[in-house]
């Protein structure tokens, strides 16, 4: 107990020291989103700058703070000043930015996002008043992007592991009571009340119980769990400790996909730190509670996110689901009661324990309490990782946070391949488990993909079905064969070879799969088809009867046209056309021969970005 206390005291001191540092501090957003945008090069160039100018400053690599579209984000904290955040800081900008601070001694005005101070600062906006962040409630993400995820002191200084210590002083049933009253539901997708799952597990007689943290995030376009682990791994570990203490597990696993190397690295270093603090092992903090955590890297099968397949995978078998019951909470890993919770569920727990059930349940709706993280992606002005109270309307999320679509909102896909597409009529629908379920979609683990008017629903549905049919484990007939037929019918429709009766075929088959498939993934695989058919039937029909793709996406149902008024005859498109379909002398509008055109899109792209006139080539519906 003593070591943790002294460590925390030390940590608080260090954290305060950092806040009021006498040295400049540079924060770089180095989560996967930042790295993808070039954060690694930015760090190099920052280090190069500081070394060259012989400036003593600390560089902190923090996780994702949310507005991924602004990455790479670099924050500068000069002694006595608050931390100030800058967006899209490429290595080229670094010199300018730092020159301004270190040479001229004044605040850089361009690329400015906001400052983290409590009061105003030289007219700069506050970071958390940025339109993307203003309406968010950051509970599980509270530390993401703020602290150094590889430094346990930062987590400790911000009340880390206090919730777990509090649990140790309570009976397990009291902890369960708090979780029950908080109304927390599983954040992995189905929204099963967390406490009930725990109780079943606890009440099953067994000498051993296991806890599994499901970090096999596999939905296309979803990255909430990865960002959380990368940005604040200790929150997840503390959540695991709390859950394990409550349901009586002695061994925990984090099942995480091997495609998340950074998250795995952060998690591994966090586990080592926690072991050093004596928070893992036998008799933790002098109590009778034993717990240990191992990491199991999954090979990246979508189906391994399904509980029973995940268990099979940990057991070293092929990741294939089995029939339930028995449920894992009764008979799971190696036949023992096993609790599987999502990363976010676990990450939320410390906050609930620390602040109490009432505090948590003030957020959300009557049946869906608390907040939920979403990866807000697609055709939006502002994309990134967000956390909002449940019950917020689709409109608020799409327009207030996401800034709306440039080409006009068309639909939002929730729940990834297991969910569905909801159109404009759902804009004022609150996002909660029941409402989404009633609409034929699901909450899912938190992917929100926004489609604009340039996105074709048939194409999107086809994409999801191709995904599920390729990711089907192959065990049960409806999923393996059925989704293949679904995908093929959709393919036919997108090629303009569909028949009206295909819609009935799709529906009939989709319902057969929904009723007949073995696991949750198979049963929900037809959801994109069913919802799209329900809400966007017209678009299907126009593909079938008019042979027309309104969004001009399906290749077989579009044609290319050169707008002669716009074309300056720069010949860029003539050069890239692989079939010689575009002809014409320089400086005169070109001619496009559709009989030769293979719709490779090269001319379109080059005209948009690289031609003198730009946008002189258009893709239009109708073959």
């Amino acid at each position, binding site marked *: 107990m003593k070591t943790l206390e002294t460590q925390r005291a030390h940590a608080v001191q260090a954290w305060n020291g950092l806040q009021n540092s006498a040295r400049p501090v540079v924060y770089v957003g180095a989560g996967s989103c930042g790295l993808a945008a070039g954060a690694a090069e930015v760090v190099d160039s920052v280090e190069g700058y500081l070394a060259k100018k012989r400036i003593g400053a600390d560089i902190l690599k923090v996780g994702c703070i949310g507005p991924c579209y602004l990455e790479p984000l670099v924050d500068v904290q000069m002694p006595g000043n608050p931390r100030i955040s800058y967006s899209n800081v490429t290595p080229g900008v670094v010199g300018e930015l730092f020159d301004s601070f270190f040479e001229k001694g004044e605040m850089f005005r361009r690329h400015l996002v906001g400052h983290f101070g409590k009061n105003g600062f030289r007219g700069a906006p506050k970071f958390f008043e940025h339109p993307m962040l203003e309406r968010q409630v950051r509970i599980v993400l509270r530390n993401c992007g703020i602290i150094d995820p590889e430094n346990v002191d930062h987590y400790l200084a911000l009340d880390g592991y206090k919730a777990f210590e509090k649990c140790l002083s309570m009976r397990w049933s009291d902890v369960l009571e708090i979780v029950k009253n908080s109304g927390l539901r599983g954040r992995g997708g189905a929204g099963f009340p967390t406490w009930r799952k725990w109780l079943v597990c606890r009440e099953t007689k067994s000498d051993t119980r296991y806890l599994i943290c499901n970090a096999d995030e596999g939905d296309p376009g979803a990255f909430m769990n990865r960002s959380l682990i990368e940005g604040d791994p200790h929150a997840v570990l503390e959540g695991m400790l709390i859950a394990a203490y409550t349901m009586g597990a002695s061994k925990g696993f984090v099942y995480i996909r091997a495609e998340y190397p950074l998250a795995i690295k952060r998690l591994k270093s966090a586990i080592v730190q926690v072991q050093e603090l004596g928070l893992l092992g036998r008799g933790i903090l002098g109590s009778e509670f034993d717990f240990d955590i191992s990491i199991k890297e999954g090979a990246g*099968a979508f*189906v391994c996110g399904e509980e029973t397949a995940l268990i099979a995978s940990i057991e070293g078998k*092929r990741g*294939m689901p*089995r*029939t339930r019951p028995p449920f894992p909470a009764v008979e799971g890993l190696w036949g023992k009661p096993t609790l599987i919770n999502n990363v976010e569920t676990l990450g939320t727990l410390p906050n609930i324990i620390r602040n109490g059930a009432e505090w948590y349940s003030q957020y959300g709706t009557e049946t869906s309490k608390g907040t939920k993280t979403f990866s807000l992606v697609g055709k939006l002005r502002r994309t990134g990782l967000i956390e909002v109270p449940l019950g917020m309307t689709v409109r608020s999320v799409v327009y207030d946070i996401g800034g709306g679509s440039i080409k006009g909102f068309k639909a939002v896909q929730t729940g990834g391949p297991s969910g569905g597409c909801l159109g404009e009529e759902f804009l004022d629908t609150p996002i909660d488990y029941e409402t989404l379920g009633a609409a034929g979609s699901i909450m899912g683990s938190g992917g929100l993909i926004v489609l604009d008017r340039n996105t074709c629903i048939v194409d999107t549905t086809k994409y999801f079905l191709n995904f599920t*049919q*390729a*990711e*089907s*484990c*192959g*065990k*049960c*007939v*409806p999923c*393996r*064969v*059925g*989704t*293949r*037929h679904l995908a*093929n019918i959709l393919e036919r429709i997108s090629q303009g070879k569909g028949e009206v009766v295909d819609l009935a*075929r799709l529906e009939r088959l989709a319902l*057969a799969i929904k*009723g*007949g*498939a*073995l696991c949750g993934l198979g049963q929900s695989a037809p959801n994109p088809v069913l919802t799209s058919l329900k809400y966007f039937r017209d678009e299907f029909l126009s593909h079938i009867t008019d042979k027309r793709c309104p969004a001009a996406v399906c290749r077989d149902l579009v044609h290319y046209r050169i707008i002669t008024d716009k074309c300056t005859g720069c010949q860029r498109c003539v050069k890239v056309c692989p079939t010689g379909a575009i002809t014409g002398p320089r400086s005169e509008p070109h001619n496009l021969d559709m009989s030769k055109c293979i719709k490779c899109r090269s001319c379109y792209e080059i005209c948009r970005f690289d031609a003198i006139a730009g946008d002189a080539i258009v893709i239009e519906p109708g073959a």
Partner: protein
Amino acid sequence: MSTKRTRAKETRTVAIEIDHRTVRCAEGVPVLRAAELNGVFVPSLCSHKDLSSFGGCRLCVVEIAGMRGYPLACSTIVQEGMKILTDTATLREMRQEILQLILSEHPSSCLMCDEKEACRESVHTVRKAGVSTGCRYCPNDDQCELQTLAERLGVTDIHYPVYYRGYEPEHDDPFFDRDYNICILCGRCVRMCQEVRGTSVLAFKYRGSKTQVGPAFGRNHVEAGCEFCGACVAVCPTGTLAEKASKWDGKPDGSEVSTCPFCTLGCQIDVHHKAGRLSKVHAHLDPEINDGQLCVRGAFCVPEVTHNHGRARKPILKRGRYFREVSWPEALGEVASRLQGLKPEEILMVVSPDLTNESLYAAQKFIRSCLKSNSIDSTARWALPGGPGVWADLFSLPISIKSVAHADSIIAVGLDSRFSFSVAGVEIRRALREGATLVTIDARHSNLARYTKHWLRPHPGTEGSVLRALTERLVAGGRGHVSPAAIDETGIDKWAFERAAEALASGENLAVIVGPTAFALDANLDLAKALLRLGGRETTTVLPLFQGANTRGALELGVLGELLPGLERAKGRRVSLADLLEGRAKPKVLYLVGESPFFERPECDFLIAQDIYRPPFEVDAFLPAASFAEAEGTLTNVEGRVQQLVKIEDLADGAVTGYARPDWFIFGALAEKLGRAGPQPKNAGQILKEIGTKVAGFPASPDRRPRRLQLSTRIPWEKARSDYREPGEYRLILEPGGFRHRGIDMSLAVEGLSELALEEGFRFHPDDLDELGIGSGDKVVLGVSDLEVSGPAKADPDCPRGTVWVYRPFAYGGIPQRANLAPLYRFGASLFNVTVSCPGASHAEGAEPQVSAGGGGEP
């Protein structure tokens, strides 16, 4: 014994309602089984009685009151008061839909064909096609579960486009062909391979519509460790897996339950026949021995051994330089005239331990009462190292194959069950699944070692000492003192031994299985003593294994010259096989019955061979014997059961079917010719009846009860051989192997067996080869005494350091390539040291001619 668990399960029943009918069924069974037991049909393609529920085909959906959706009958366990509907309109529609989905991935043109009825009436030939595209082109036509189900569920049309996967059919591995284009991915083969056989060769690979069954990582079946037990073939509901030998035989006319004629376990088999000919063999669901499992020999070799084109089916006499096919009377006349007036030591009859009890008895009776000689011998002697005394004592123990599966702790000594005694391996793994502890004692890696933490790896030849030491511990309840020196001598780590002893001690029921390798390696007396000590306890089952299908019968029925039937001492002069081989005796007439333990024609005036194949050297008279499929009889298995061998093929003599006769019949005919005996038996049953009256304890009719040998007087044990050591730094181990049946190695008749990578050559530990500077495949010369033998070296990490391993055919003859090793065989089974040299060219060439000289060609 330890059936407490199962018994408790069986006694409790629950009442459930199936289709408005109240029935009772055992607690804990799936709804599917409950329905089946009560005569209610629920369609299913992926469930199987021996396998865990899978839930893949989704055809067994049912409606259960109070349960959401449509639960599966195969995975839902019955509960008191459950109300189940199995045949509602919704269910029928769902099943049709699902079956259509299955059929959309399965070539089924003829199943859905308008001409189906007409086709069945008029087309009688199965089309032999490389690729199956429809029922008439499928080896499983008319025997297909999918076909039956499609008819039963009334699916006559598919609403979906049909996919063809376009895989190349796999014909490369021995024994069975695979066409995964018609696989429905029910997973029965995968589960059989993993759950029952414990080999896990088959797995699902890839995902989605590319999902396929097969060994992982693109290996072939031989590399992946397949036992070729055929269990996957037997459970396949479609024609995906098909035996090469019987693939195009079509639906069999019927089947008979018989006994596998290839080893001493005596597995029960269903022998399918078509048009009077043996077609294929499936395991019989016999709870006593094999319970639906077989090994590669039983599953695949039966038809080929009896139907191979090399079968000799007509009597042959040597006339001058020529061999003439002659009639039976002529052949018998010639043989009889040569047997006339011989002194007892001028004749030697060598009898195979693969013969039926009846033939064995008739053989010794012929020698003793017609020729007044005791000069009869058998290679059964080689199969039972240590001598008849040891084995008579071992057979007096209660031996049980089935009890292995019920044991809590198991010791396996020198047993590799991949291709031989696979069923014993399956029983061991059954026990392991129930939580038993396994300790293996084996100098080399065996296929069982992967299931245990306790692999005791002694120096070869000291397995017996280890078992004795373990016995001391177990019998004395953990207090038995074992001298550390005794453990050290075997080369085993003391702590590993202690841990193994501790792990075994916790078990209530112990099973000890000893493979033929262990007995062959100088350890036989120690092994036998340990087995006798353990086997005397009520809670222990022993299972000593040896080569030869009826070796125990050979011992009991007096084909070893010194013992009469019933193991009485024989009086009178005799010549033995050892006398002949070691040049101590030169009988004038040699009579080989189903046996040819020579590479070259042994020296004698007149050589008679009576077998199903001709031996690989010149004989003066050949008498064609009936194979196991053509004659009736009984075999005695290791437990003492006297089990029936059914005559499957009863075809009239002719140019094609030949003129083979049962062995006992030939002896009778000869006796008649010699005019020295009364009326001869008309059928095998008569002989067995005679055995029953003459031999104490032997049943007079087939009797499947295990039987302990009752000895009136104990046969003294032979003295232990002195360890024969030659100077030389490498220890040579001649491991008994091969697939012997009667006079041949079956791999000569069964092509697949020869592919099974029973590596010929000298196997060394790779480090030893490095040290010697020899590469794998290089020629090495082994020197012992004054002789040198050469062969290719082979790196084998499973061999201990400082040893050379060679497969020794249990009764040589057989594969001609092995002839160059013949000089080694004169050392018998003992271990000895050899020098190893990497050839200077002169050495290697010196040894080379031996290969061709000994090899011989087809006679």
